[in-house]
């Protein structure tokens, strides 16, 4: 298959700074069937990579493997050249989990506290915030356009606003890599477009590498520069331009996965 060759050649090249390397990873949950088989892909510094696949194709599982939250059945994951089990600089990786927006309506956290919990959970006793830390919180909220909401309870924000707060929490450490799992699920089209624009700004202005997980193939028309398609196996991994010419793309179009296509 030409796509597989493409996948191999791109993971074989060692240019730029390699943030993530997934090497022949397979996984299954307990006694179930294999959810992922022999996945190999890389994320280079500066990439804006869209990880595409239909519901249940294993995208979230792959993300959790990359984050070391699950252990692969076979294969290895490396982050910044180190095996994921040994990796320790987790503040360098920002993560916005799928369904992070399902906030407990009774949880009494303010927007500031949600961002602060990531910043301060790295250190011990002191509850005092330093000037730099206050500034980091403000900057993170500014980057997502939520600086005017600091004192608001998160449970009383809209889904889209909550999602922005979670991104602020994920970038408060100035991470090198930001991983977002279906961040725009349940968000209307206009908000979605502004949201992708904001991610593009983070990618370009703050030089944050982005892994965007979605089942919405429409994002390839946005600002991504790399695409990976997963459906138990990796069916495509390469540049955005090549993807639009690829069999994988045509197959997805034919299968009706194109949810929204905007130019």
């Amino acid at each position: 298959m030409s796509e597989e060759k493409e996948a191999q050649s791109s993971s074989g090249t060692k240019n730029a700074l390699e943030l993530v390397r997934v090497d022949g990873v397979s996984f299954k949950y307990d006694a179930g069937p294999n959810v992922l088989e022999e996945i190999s892909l890389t994320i280079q510094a500066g990439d804006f990579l869209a990880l595409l696949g239909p519901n249940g194709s294993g995208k979230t599982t792959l993300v959790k493997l990359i984050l070391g939250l699950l252990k692969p059945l076979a294969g290895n994951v490396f982050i910044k050249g180190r095996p994921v089990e040994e990796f320790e600089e987790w503040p360098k990786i920002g993560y916005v989990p799928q369904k992070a927006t399902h906030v407990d309506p009774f949880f009494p956290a303010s927007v500031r506290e949600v961002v602060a919990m990531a910043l301060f959970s790295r250190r011990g006793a002191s509850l005092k915030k330093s000037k730099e830390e206050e500034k980091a919180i403000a900057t993170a909220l500014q980057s997502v356009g939520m600086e005017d909401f600091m004192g608001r309870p998160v449970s009383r924000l809209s889904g889209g606003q909550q999602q922005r707060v979670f991104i602020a929490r994920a970038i408060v450490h100035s991470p090198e890599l930001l991983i977002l799992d279906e961040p725009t699920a349940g968000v209307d089209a206009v908000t979605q477009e502004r949201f992708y624009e904001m991610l593009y700004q983070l990618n370009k202005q703050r030089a944050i590498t982005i892994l965007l997980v979605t089942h919405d193939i429409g994002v390839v028309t946005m600002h991504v520069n790399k695409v990976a398609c997963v459906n138990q196996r990796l069916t495509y991994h390469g540049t955005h331009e090549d993807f639009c010419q690829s069999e994988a793309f045509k197959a997805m179009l034919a299968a009706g996965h194109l949810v929204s296509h905007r130019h």
Partner: protein
Amino acid sequence: MEAFFTYGFLQRALFAGIFVAVACSMLGLFLILRRDAMIGHGLAHVAFGGVAFGLFLNMMPLATALGVTVLASWAVIKLKEKAGLHGDSAIAVFSSVGMAIGILLATLAHNLNVDLLSFLFGDILAIEPIEVWLSIGLAAAVVASILINYHQLMFLTFDREAARAAGIRPQGLDFQLTVLTAITVVLGMKVVGILLVTALLVMPAAAGLQLASNFKQALWISAVVAFLSVTGGLAAAFAFDLPASAAIVLLAFSIFGALFLLRRRKRF
């Protein structure tokens, strides 16, 4: 007011009660938000077994209850992990076994019944000086360890997946929370009794959740409600010759109710 300075037992009850109730309220906030409030209830039943054990061996019941309950809390965690049981089933197993052992020991040795009853219904006015110091010391330790891990605990409670991905290891904190619950439940048992100790964990924290617009506020309001419930409850118990445990719990409930109504008026 004069009575407070005249009667040593009233001072002891007040000091121990305030410390224990404040520790309970802070821990309770985390337990409620983790949907884990019933663990307090279950461990209180285990504590009953521990108390009976102490009376049976003629040892200090508070000490044996502490040992047994902390051990059981550890076992609950292991059972959750290993047996694939849900938290509430694991708790149900231990609470009924604890109760059964308590009843068995109480029946085997005679004359335990009066003492045992004081643990079921609480008897803060009869607290011994050494128990006061134990209560204050442990309650202070509970509050301190919550404050030390404040942000990690909040992160883990709010969004477990993201917290793990941020490098927070949940096992240690889960364990800590459960053991702290075991300790506070045993202390709370002396204040309001085994049957009412869940109220000390849940009511002030639930009251805090009515008004707070951030986590820090919730923690503060919970602590203040706990403080008011103990002082007011003890005062009422002394003035009107009521059972202290019932007075404390009903006062806490009244404050919760008032804040609940206040919130509804604020919203609509």
